[in-house]
């Protein structure tokens, strides 16, 4: 999955940023957002969560999920 996310990040760098957070090393943030399974992707816009999705997500669906959330 990592290579796919990397591709998505590069191909959409002008639209959104992709960031990664290690759950084991950042328990405070994990707890704050109630992360119970992984991987999970949370979309933020202007400091607010505007969407989240998880599991094995095809590249096209990944991008569409993000675009739908930030439009």
């Amino acid at each position, binding site marked *: 999955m990592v290579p796919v996310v990397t591709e998505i*990040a590069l191909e959409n760098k002008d639209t959104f940023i992709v*960031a990664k*957070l290690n759950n084991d090393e950042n328990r405070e*943030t994990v707890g704050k957002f109630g992360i119970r399974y992984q991987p999970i992707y949370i979309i*933020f816009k202007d400091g607010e969560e505007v969407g989240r999705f998880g599991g094995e997500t095809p590249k096209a669906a990944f991008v569409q999920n993000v675009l739908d959330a930030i439009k």
Partner: protein
Amino acid sequence: MKTLTCSLLILSLALLASTASYAQAETDIEILRAADVNADGVINVLDLVLIASHFGDPLVDAQTPNPDVNGDGSVNVLDLVLVANRLGETVRPPVAFVTVAPDIGSELDIDGTITLTFDNPPTDVTVSTGVAMTDGNSVTITGPFTPGDLELTVTWGDGTETFSYTVRPPAAFVSAAPENDVEITTEDSITLTFDNPPTDVTVSTGVAMTDGNSVKITGPFTPGALELTITWADGTETLSYTVIELDTEAPSITGGTVSDGDTDVDASTTIEIEFSEDVRGLVTLRTESDDNVGWITTFEGNRVMLTPVAGKELAPETPYVITGKVRDAANNGTEINITFTTASAYDGIPIEVTDANFDTVVLGSKVPIVVEFYTDW
């Protein structure tokens, strides 16, 4: 009895005088005037009658007519004899001053003319300054007079008069501003300077206002070539200008590398703003809190350049303001206020976030951001 005696006396004196001379010498003009008791210009029997009628009368000082011809204090036969000796002679009347032009106290040019008018042609006219020419009842006095206060004394056969004037120094052209052969606008004014206050100033174009040694000429002037001729009492001067339309239009932004409201502005290179015409002024790059970033501002023709300075780089995804004011050659001003946001430093490689920077990097991002919460297996 007195009347009869006088009549006989007058008759005899008149007969006696039938052989009297008619010649009039200038030297005895005062005697002749005294003998012309009724001041009609002729010495005749009427003067004798006037004397006779006042025989023995008390005299009053400056009595007119005065029958005491010889001025001995009594009216008697001696006065009759004096008149009788002059019977038939005419007497030139005294010449009195009537008017002067220009008015006393007025200003004269150094080559000015003063004209006096008398009630009769004056004789033996002399003047303290200038040259006097007599023509009938008039005397014309010409200079040159010395600049400053003039006390002019005119003396003639029957009197003297003194007139006061101020003689104006001649005015010579010194300079013009703007100077000759330059461009001016339709609404400009031209100021001329003289070494002395000029008089009678006229201009071929515009309106002239004189103030001391200066003359201000205002338009509006017609666009194109202007030949401006200034004439004053002492000379004339012609100046040439090219008149252009007055520029009332302020410079406007026509392009550049950044516009108000732009985002994703590359913060690493020179920012350029282009105007509709050449400008000058003061423009700075500032933070939102109005701190001067310290970039170098340069003006080149119609462009303003803001050049980065080492150590004063712009932060990514941060708003900045280009602010200031520029003016064109006609001093028309335009306020500049361009707000832009620098581009993200993000290059497409997923960035690692932590508890420590999550709020800043994720919640503070102005660009949508997707965070993958993952676990290393």
